[in-house]
């Protein structure tokens, strides 16, 4: 069985500014299904770019990206949108829940972009996920009525609604105090133990320590993994 993700000499160059910037300088990386990987490194090391490439928010300039054994290196915008919609679950530092929209509807938001989705089944799954993240009592609350930790748990439920192959968490505890950070990390660990694959960008060693494996980057390259 092929690894979930295999990157072969992935390069990302930003050429839209006057001075071309080499954000990723030939990254080789394999991530097996069920892994929990933390990516660390100083700012400007390319960890965000790697994250965005893994999440199909960017296309590589050169090199190969195999997702579940299939070459996903050069896709159209719409194809990448569809992969994000079906295979990726995003967790953001600033939660990014829609205002004036209930917790339940926020969790169901990705389903809006699945033309052939079974709405009733998706709703049932959303309710199960909200139970998993212990928000069953706040289904109809608006995001501004929730604490930061509750908002991030709702966002994690949203990331799981499409049964993603890969959960991408970008500084998931960056906006949280240490107690709620622990709660969120406990939840991510629990998901990992249930078999989910998680890639997390962080700059906190103790958060990275919760991961199964840590990748350190510098100047667009992986220096240890």
């Amino acid at each position, binding site marked *: 069985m092929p690894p979930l993700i295999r990157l072969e000499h992935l390069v990302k160059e930003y050429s839209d500014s006057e001075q071309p910037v080499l954000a990723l300088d030939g990254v080789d990386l394999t991530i097996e299904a069920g892994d929990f990987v933390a990516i660390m490194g100083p700012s400007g090391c390319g960890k965000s770019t790697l994250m*965005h490439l893994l999440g199909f928010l960017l296309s590589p300039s050169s090199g190969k990206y195999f997702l579940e054994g299939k070459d996903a290196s050069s896709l159209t*915008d*719409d194809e990448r949108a569809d992969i994000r919609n*079906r295979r990726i679950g*995003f967790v953001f530092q600033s939660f*990014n829940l829609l205002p*004036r*929209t209930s917790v339940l509807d926020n969790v169901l*938001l990705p389903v809006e972009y699945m033309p052939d989705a079974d709405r009733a089944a998706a709703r049932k799954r959303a309710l199960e996920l909200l139970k998993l993240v212990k928000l069953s009592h706040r289904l109809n609350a608006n995001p501004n009525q929730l604490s930061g930790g509750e908002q991030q748990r709702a966002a994690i439920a*949203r990331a799981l609604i499409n049964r993603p192959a890969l959960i991408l968490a970008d500084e998931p505890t960056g906006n949280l105090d240490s107690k709620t950070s622990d709660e969120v990390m406990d939840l991510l660990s629990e998901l990992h133990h249930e078999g989910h694959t998680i890639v997390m960008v962080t700059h906190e060693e103790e958060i990275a320590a919760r991961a199964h494996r840590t990748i350190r980057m510098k100047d667009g390259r992986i220096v240890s993994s």
Partner: protein
Amino acid sequence: MALLPVADIIYSVRTLSAAKSRTLLTMLGIIIGVMSVVAVASVGQSAQDLVLGEVQAVGANRISIFPGGSQENTPPPIVMGIVSTTLTERDYRAIRDLPHVVVGSPIVTSVASLTYKEKSFMVQVWGVGEEFPALQDARIASGRFFSRSDVESYGHLAVLGSKAATDLFGDEDPVNKTIRLKDAAFQVVGVLQERGSSIGQGQDSQIFIPVTTAQKLILGITYINAASVKVDASNHVTQAIDDIKYTLRRRHHITDPAKDDFSVRSADTAIGILDSITTVINVFLLVVTAISLVVGGINIMNIMYVAVRERTREVGLRKALGARSRRIFLQFLAESSMISLSGGLIGLALGAAIAYGITLVAVQYGLDWSFSLSVPAIAAALSVSTVIGLVFGVAPAMAAARLDAIRALRYE
């Protein structure tokens, strides 16, 4: 993919109603635009109906003959103040004898000084034939109208319009009193009932005398200013017009119709001319007011650009979660159309209310004014406002659709 995703629309409604005063301001241009268009369309239609209705009421089955030639669709020269002398009372008698012509009158008009006892003032004096009351649907309030023999014998007889009678005699009975018109004595033989106004002209202050007397004594002319007849049925109007033209050409020794020295008009041609004139005016007014709709559309475009900027992170999130660019485009396009359509509905209600208010005032002033708001006008107002939302929403929606997901997510 559904063209109008329900979830997007619900979200738009929530977003718009969360900032009610801003949404209302956004709509204001469209509200005012649609309001003016609907009010102008409705009032214009009512005014047109009123004018045409009055002409119709006066002119059913009526044919008028004027001296001087003219094109079919231009007014006869007399309207321009050009005096032609080519129509006589004898011409009228010949026309009156034609088949289908049931009633008629020659007409000369002038202004003369009228004296009764110590009172003296200028009045409109109409020289008409004995059938004038029947032609005009005028009723005799007291006394009688003059007869054909009175006309033929240059009778010094006068019939007063109701207002002329009250102005001159007050509560006195005018019948058999003697008045002086241009220093000649006339015997008042009758008074007409009040007739109100027609096409904005008062009809009750005139004094009517036999056409022959008016020609000879008051004006010193041998021609008439106009002749007017009614035919028995509307489907005979065309035939009667042809007969009248044939008769007059024969009497005037004209062989080439292009050299006609008379003009024949029916109410139908008058209505046709009036209809086209009033339609042009209405369309012109509509176009002028419709410009405000464009201003309303630009207003929407502006606010939508602001909305896209403010909701950049939302767009980034939606894209990250799998929304294609086209879907983002449709979301914002649906929102601007919704703003525009809602504004259109409010404007429609306000415009209809204004038109209804004008109807109430017009009816107060005794006009036969009817409120009209046609279904096509409503449909046009609403579809135009939706189209404006679509057209002016395209550019901001494209701006939203083109946003880069990563930058949008980082946007503060």
